[in-house]
């Protein structure tokens, strides 16, 4: 039997349109059972028919539905009402046959949903934990950095103070009091100079606050010649180490532009003192 020919004969259309005799129908069904191509062709014809039939669709009056439903029994055999529909319970439950399979299917759906749900929940928790970890790590890094800064600062300060104390205790350290000039009669400062190490420290600074853009500068005077010993810290400190000087007669502080000058502005001399 040639499949192409059979299909073109129109027999399959007649089969779907229910125009064949019982024998002819059986023949078609037999052939369809063993021929997927034939079965497929029949399926396509059927779909065309449905499509065609749909065009004539007409809503029946609403009350008919109830009439129809009332004609079928509420319960069949040994089944109760409660088990009447899967559509109510939203699962593939069928009373009677294949109960085990149904339970299996229902159980597997439940498990799937359950696991999907818990997976989502745990994933969400994990994400939050991840984020918190990232934040914590950033904070830790910050603390660590801060701690190190502070530690360094303290160590610096301790060492600085230790040096200062050592200098004070040293026999070769001179203590020079710088007194205020006409500009600021109350101004004071103390300079400690060690003639052996040449180190200079300034302490007990009592000067009017330097205006913006200006900064105090310490000078060492050697036979009248000024030597820059550095600018004073704008931040208030107890003691500040200045530049070393080996030969010096007196010390003076002037108010210069910020950062200091190469030569002192004598008009802006605030304190001065001799060894």
């Amino acid at each position, binding site marked *: 039997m040639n499949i192409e020919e059979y299909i*073109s*004969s*129109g*027999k399959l*259309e*007649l089969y*779907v*349109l*229910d*125009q064949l005799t019982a024998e002819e129908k059986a023949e078609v*069904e037999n052939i*369809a*059972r063993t021929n997927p191509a034939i079965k497929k062709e*029949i*399926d*396509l*014809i*059927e*779909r*065309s*028919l*449905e*499509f*065609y*039939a*749909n*065009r*004539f*669709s*007409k*809503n*029946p*009056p609403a009350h*008919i*539905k109830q*009439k*129809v*439903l009332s*004609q*079928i029994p*509420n319960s*069949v*055999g040994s*089944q109760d009402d409660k088990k*009447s*529909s*899967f*559509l*109510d319970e939203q699962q*593939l439950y*069928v*009373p*009677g*046959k294949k109960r085990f399979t149904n339970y299996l299917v229902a159980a597997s759906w439940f498990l799937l949903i359950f696991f999907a749900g818990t997976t989502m929940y745990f994933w969400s928790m994990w994400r939050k934990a991840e984020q918190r970890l990232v934040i914590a790590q950033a904070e830790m890094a910050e603390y660590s950095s801060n701690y190190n800064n502070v530690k360094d600062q303290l160590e610096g300060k301790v060492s600085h103070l230790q040096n200062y104390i050592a200098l004070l205790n040293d026999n070769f350290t001179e203590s020079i009091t710088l007194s205020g000039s006409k500009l600021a009669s109350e101004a004071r400062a103390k300079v400690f100079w060690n003639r052996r190490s040449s180190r200079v420290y300034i302490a007990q600074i009592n000067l009017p606050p330097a205006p913006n853009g200006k900064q105090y500068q310490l000078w060492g005077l050697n036979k009248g010649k000024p030597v820059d010993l550095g600018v004073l810290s704008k931040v208030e400190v107890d003691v500040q180490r200045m530049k070393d000087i080996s030969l010096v007669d007196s010390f003076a502080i002037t108010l210069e532009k910020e950062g200091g000058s190469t030569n002192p502005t004598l008009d802006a001399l605030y304190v001065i003192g001799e060894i």
Partner: protein
Amino acid sequence: MEAASNVISEKDLVFLLKSKDRKAFEYLYDNYSSTIFGIIFKILKAEDIAEEVLQDSFLRFWNKIDDYNAEKGRLFTWMLNIARNLSIDKLRSGDYKSMTRSEDVFKDNSPASMKISDNFKPDHIGVKDMLQILNADQKNLLELMYFEGYSQSEISKEFNIPLGTVKTRVRAAMMVLRKLF
């Protein structure tokens, strides 16, 4: 048909119906009653009788579901044929003939009236245009065969068309429809 397949597969629906699941049957009614009613009405052309046949059809769907075998075709085709057969039986029965003037029914299908317009009053906009694609002969042939209950031999005799030609024309008509969807 689209509504049905979106929610529940035909395979599952059939399974439930065979298990006498009442809700599945209600689902069947909700999704298929309009189309079935449409066909019945097209054949019978009278509301009251069509409603009666609709009820009978659905009752038969419920009672005879075990006769349905998926191997033989789709559920809808099976339902359609049941409804159609009930309708044509009614058409030819004493009840119907006494209620309508039967002569008019057959007169409408004489060769003289084989034209595009009259017989066919589509319920939907666009259907008419769409079905213009079927030529007059093809359309009337389908209608005669499917909705009027003429067998192929009746058509062949009535309209003097060779039997083979009837068959091939039917196939041709169905092929055209297939292109449309």
